[in-house]
């Protein structure tokens, strides 16, 4: 079975600083990888996803993520964070077994922004 690990439970960065949120996955083949964001009082929103091709994926809100097969990682980055980026971030991997498919989510990383 696939699994997703987000080793950082909570991260605080200063506004304008760069950000990297870590994600490691466990999967035998090429995974389908996602990053979702959950802002306070709002539903989950897809930031970006990776299936194949260019290992650097651009998403919404200025986020990007890089797939590194050798490290089984799919870290999320942003060069300069804004106060509105404070939220919970979830890494996820897509799993397909026969005709069934589902998304396995990590436990999330809460991002706080220091003014």
């Amino acid at each position, binding site marked *: 079975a696939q699994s997703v690990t987000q080793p950082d439970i909570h991260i605080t960065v200063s506004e304008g600083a760069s950000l990297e949120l870590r994600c490691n996955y466990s999967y035998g083949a090429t995974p389908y990888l996602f990053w979702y964001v959950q802002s306070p009082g709002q539903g989950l929103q897809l930031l970006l996803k990776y299936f194949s091709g260019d290992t650097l994926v651009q998403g919404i809100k200025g986020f990007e993520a890089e797939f590194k097969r050798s490290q089984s990682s799919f870290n999320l980055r942003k060069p300069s964070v804004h106060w509105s980026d404070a939220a919970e971030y*979830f890494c996820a991997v*897509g799993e397909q077994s026969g005709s*069934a498919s589902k998304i396995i989510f990590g436990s999330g990383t809460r991002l706080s922004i220091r003014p």
Partner: protein
Amino acid sequence: GAGVSQSPSNKVTEKGKDVELRCDPISGHTALYWYRQSLGQGLEFLIYFQGNSAPDKSGLPSDRFSAERTGGSVSTLTIQRTQQEDSAVYLCASSSRDFNPWETQYFGPGTRLLVL
């Protein structure tokens, strides 16, 4: 509708009572998912409906949990004889195609369930 909607937004119930949570997916979406998000934890997959096929119930935590999807649209998640550990936010998501783990899932705002 424009997005996935869920009702009620909040539900407080007493231990041992049954509750029903409703999800209206985006019109035309054939895949529907239920997840549970407990305090301070990630999303736990519960059940997946794919078109008219039998649902994937592999994530349901106990036989007190069940779900239906009528007419390929609206879904109801039922929790019987609720326990305090059932307290969580229950999220519903839909996507436009079946059998595609890479298809974008669109999430509803969730139902916050509190079992006293």
